[in-house]
């Protein structure tokens, strides 16, 4: 089998360059610096993010193509050939009722720019939404209005692309401005002598693209990149940063991390009680951790801030925290339970972060100027998310306990396992207390109010009190280690509410039909699954205990006799 493959290889290699050279390679422009979304980024990242925000995916099949085109090609097509695109069905419409309003076919999710802006009902809905926002800015929007807003945002992006305005690849003239400009404004910012060569290079690149001449395109694109950047080298970010971001974007360190963790998990399970499996697992876990660290380092350099600004960043940080805590505790206790409990949690969260780009948006956006370089924001958010990580680890360890009660034949749980769970909860409780209080201190410092029952604050307190309840119940003797395990599951539901629910459940409103946005079905499914799991374990546990008691009573009766 292998022999045949190897014999075919030279033949394949012969054909490969031919196949490649038949197509213009959009990745030539990946290193071009473009200003978008408030910061400078590589063109390759811009194309993927823009297509993602327009269509919800990183690839698109236009009507004139037989197959799906990658983002780079689509965005080049629009740049060099904008005319035909207003009829292309490229605008994502999420909300089913809005699709009906626009008269879209049942299964279709994408509509064309033209069909939307010529739809009278949409225009009316948009105008009344604008009016409401002006007159009653504090009124909440219903799900239809929210989608009208999203769709009009996408229309705006589309217009920017088709007009060429969004392709801000020309650095600003050295007059103090920091705004990059599109190619058509070259003449207004630069003198003729400077602007002309760049304009010519652009035209050459464009015609090479339209002729579908790959080698000419490569030459022209490279020349255009050099000339454009050369107009004002001081204004662009350093080339190494561009390369770094391209690398970060293509390498997906967080994806490789969960793959490594998956490998560790498999080897831990498969070779559970043997040293070899344990060692392999350790090696893979450390590899995964290094990948995560490298991912964070790159992300921090690119974004110039800590990863504290959106749900995606909290999810990858949580996964990182789970891994760190698990490694530290595992190193201390060498019990295997920490790795076994942590790995599914880490894998799941990184997997979610990787596969739900519309809910967990991984694009790097700059912070509002007033929040940049904000010490409190960073410390508060990282402490809180680290506490979430500790509780997630506790959930993982609790799963082991509950799993053992449900599935293990011997129903034996070492006391030390309960202790490991307790240790994990301790970390979470301490961090959550500190993090919540830091939030209050920050609020007091920044705008004079320590606590004002904001839903996010309140739910952090509810979660804290839930874990307090669980710990105090153990002190009271009402339950023991198993109670901690059940409590870890329920407590984490409160954590989920504080972390995710406040934004996606409360924000939407209970009585609306906003379900479907923000992945709420997944969250609900997760919660239900967890509660069923815990409920089953509790039921089994109680059964065992009563059985033991009757058994003991019977024994006593026998003894007495």
């Amino acid at each position: 089998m292998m022999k045949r493959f190897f014999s075919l290889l030279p033949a394949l290699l012969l054909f490969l360059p031919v196949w490649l050279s038949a197509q213009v390679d959009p990745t030539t422009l990946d290193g071009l610096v473009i200003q978008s979304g408030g910061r400078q980024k590589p063109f390759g990242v811009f194309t993927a993010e823009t297509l993602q925000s327009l269509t919800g995916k990183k690839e698109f099949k236009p009507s004139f193509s037989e197959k799906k085109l990658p983002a780079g090609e689509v965005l080049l097509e629009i740049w060099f050939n904008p005319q035909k695109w207003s009829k292309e069905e490229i605008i994502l419409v999420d909300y089913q009722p809005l699709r009906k309003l626009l008269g879209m076919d049942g299964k279709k999710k994408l509509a064309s720019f033209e069909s939307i802006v010529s739809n009278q009902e949409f225009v009316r809905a948009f105008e009344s939404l604008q009016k409401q926002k002006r007159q009653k800015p504090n009124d909440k929007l219903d799900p239809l209005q929210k989608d009208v807003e999203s769709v009009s945002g996408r229309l705006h992006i589309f217009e920017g692309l088709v007009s060429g305005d969004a392709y801000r690849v020309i650095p600003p003239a050295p007059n103090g401005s920091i705004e990059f400009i599109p190619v058509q404004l070259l003449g207004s910012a630069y003198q003729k002598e400077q602007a002309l060569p760049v304009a010519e290079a652009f035209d050459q690149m464009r015609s090479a693209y339209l002729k579908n001449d790959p080698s000419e395109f490569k030459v022209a694109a490279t020349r255009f990149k050099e000339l454009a950047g050369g107009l004002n080298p001081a204004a662009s970010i350093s080339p190494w940063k561009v390369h770094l971001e391209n690398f970060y974007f293509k390498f997906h360190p967080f994806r490789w991390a969960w793959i490594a963790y998956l490998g560790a998990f498999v080897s831990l399970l498969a070779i559970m009680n043997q040293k070899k499996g344990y060692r392999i697992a350790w090696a893979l876990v450390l590899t995964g951790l290094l990948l995560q660290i490298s991912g964070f380092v790159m992300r921090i350099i690119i974004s110039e801030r800590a990863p504290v600004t959106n749900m995606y960043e909290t999810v990858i940080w949580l996964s990182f925290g789970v891994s760190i805590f698990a490694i530290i505790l595992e190193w201390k206790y060498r019990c295997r339970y920490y790795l076994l409990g942590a790995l599914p949690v880490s894998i799941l969260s990184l997997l979610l972060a990787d596969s739900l780009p519309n809910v967990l948006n991984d694009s790097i956006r700059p912070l509002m100027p007033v929040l940049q370089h904000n010490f409190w924001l960073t410390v508060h958010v990282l402490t809180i998310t680290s506490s979430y990580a500790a509780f997630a680890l506790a959930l993982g360890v609790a799963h082991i306990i509950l799993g053992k009660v449900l599935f293990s034949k011997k129903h034996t749980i070492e006391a030390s396992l309960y202790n490991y769970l307790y240790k994990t909860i301790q970390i979470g409780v301490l961090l959550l207390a500190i993090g919540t209080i830091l939030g209050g201190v920050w609020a007091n410092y920044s705008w004079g109010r320590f606590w004002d029952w904001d839903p996010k604050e309140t739910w952090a307190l509810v979660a804290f009190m839930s874990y307090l309840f669980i710990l105090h119940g153990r002190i009271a003797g009402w339950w023991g280690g198993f109670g901690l395990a059940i409590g870890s599951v329920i407590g984490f539901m409160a954590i989920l509410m504080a972390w995710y629910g406040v934004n996606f459940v409360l924000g939407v409103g209970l009585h609306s039909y906003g379900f479907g946005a923000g992945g709420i079905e997944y969250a609900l499914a997760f919660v239900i699954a967890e509660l069923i799991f815990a409920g089953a374990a509790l039921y089994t546990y109680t059964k065992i205990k009563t059985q033991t008691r009757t058994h003991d009573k019977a024994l006593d009766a026998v003894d007495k006799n």
Partner: protein
Amino acid sequence: MIVNTGGIPTREQLIKQRQKESPYWWLVHQLGSLKLAMFLIFTIALAIAIATFAESSFSTKVAQEYIYKAPWFNLWLIVLCVNLFSVTLTRWPWQNKHLGFIVTHYGIITLLVGAMIGRIWGFEGNVTLDKDKPLGRIITNRTILQVDSPRDHATYITDVDVSMHPPRPEKTVVMPIPDSDRKIILSDYTESIQAQPYLEAAIDNPESVPGVNLRLQSAMMSQTFEVPLWLKKGSGLESYDLFGLATLKIVKELPTFDPAKMIKPGEGIPFSENQIVFAKSPESTVIDNSWGKPSGYIVTFLVAEEGTQDRVKIISPEGLEKTFDLTAKLPAKFILEDGVNVSVSERWTDFAIVKGRPGNASKEKNNPALFINLSGRIQPGPRASKSLPHPELIMAIQPDGRIMYMVMRGEYVTMAGKSTEGEPIIPGWADWSVTPLSVFQKAIPLTKNVVLTDTQVQTLDPKTLTPALKASIRTSEGQEGPVQWIPSGEVVTLEGPDGSPQRVGFGLQAHQIPFLITLQEFQVPRRQGTDDPADYISTIQFNHLKTGDTSIQTSKMNHPATYPNEWWRPLTGLTYKFSQAQWDPNNLNQTTLQVLYDPGWFFKWIGSLGICAGIFIMFYCKPYAKPATSKNKEINPTTDTATIL
């Protein structure tokens, strides 16, 4: 349990015994019981969790009134403090291992005490500063009723609820008057009251001049309201602007009537307009119309390619389009469908001002232009009305009490006539009618409070609307005095049924501060290249009235200004924090700051520190941590009876 058969009881014995022997200790142990603590933790957590859903489904106000600020919730917190304190007593005499436990629990109590102090002695308010205008008061968010005591004229302040349960005619609110058995009855509340002028006869008043109270009515716009017109120059009451559609004016004598300027019904308003139209820059058209404003006819000069005719395109205000071919022969005359005459009298290939007059700079077609005259009549129509002169209803009061009026458009008269009290004038603007209610030869303006209708409110800026309470005095016998509106921010004298005065004020409580605040500068730097604000920076000067101390500070987003600012003040909370709250994009000489004074801050952060430190000690400081639980046993249901885990 180890029982000493000697004399000294163990600690455990001691604790058990004192509960039996002393009722006080028994109470302490009951109040400090873990069961009570668990109950409190559960119910408080549940209550605030529900509150977040209430807040999201209804509003923050609802959540605050029914839960967070409700008396039972605060009682719960007090019980929590008692429980926390008692539990520390139950462990008396304290041992080393209790350190973390004590610090945490007292930390929570301290935090809650700080919260209470802040609630009672702290306050929250706003202050709107205009540049260079010092203020010494802060408007809080507390809506109050201010009542003078009839006995000593001291002013009493009490909260009044106008947001959750405002007084309504079907559900009045009764407020007591201190030192009196009379009551104030609040029978209604409105968000939008306006002090409106009206005229009243005043024969002996030297200020009085002629005037008329008019009623304006339109069924189409569902509006009915009254407006005075008063002949005093500079009073602001000589004219009235009807929603920008038309103006009503009062004059001493009507302008002389020129029959040539009379427009019969159905006729259009005559105009004659000259335009210089440029082919290459249609937006630069030079227009000169007899009315002084453009007629609304848009002329475009379309220069042809080789071989075809130049053309002129004209679009009327109503939207009718017509294009004419332009031959070489000038003047070229055309007539539009609506009867307007078009005459092209000059044509240039390269328009320029040559020797002070319009001429050709060259023979090249560099700047083709036309001189066009449009003349005719324009009918008032839905779109044409904007280009026509502004309609006016001009009235003059005759000595016999009648009103002579003219309805004009620019210098043209569309209607003229006479009217008396009660006789409506229909000027021909939609279905508006203007009816003189009372005509005066000598009158002065007064104001009365009028509740605005919903349709009127919609047309106004929400910030200019004033809320008001409707109030009256009721004696203990049940007699009620006359009803009056009290607008927010005003003190009104209510009359009892016997005519005795009672001063009552309504509005937001103002808090006097010991220093003056003056806005020196307000800046809103924008994000590069856009209009979006990047920050809000207020430079404020503080002048302490007692110490004479002066300090200049800036308040920016996330960086409030605090004053007084001795080093110890931010730590104790005995300082005022001014943070950026609102701004008016149209007035950069004004800023609104939120003011917070929280004397409980000291306890809040000390308590918080205690909580965190206590938890840390309990968990991680070996000599001070509780010993690891000894209740660690395996469960093995088939062989082991030990089940406590």
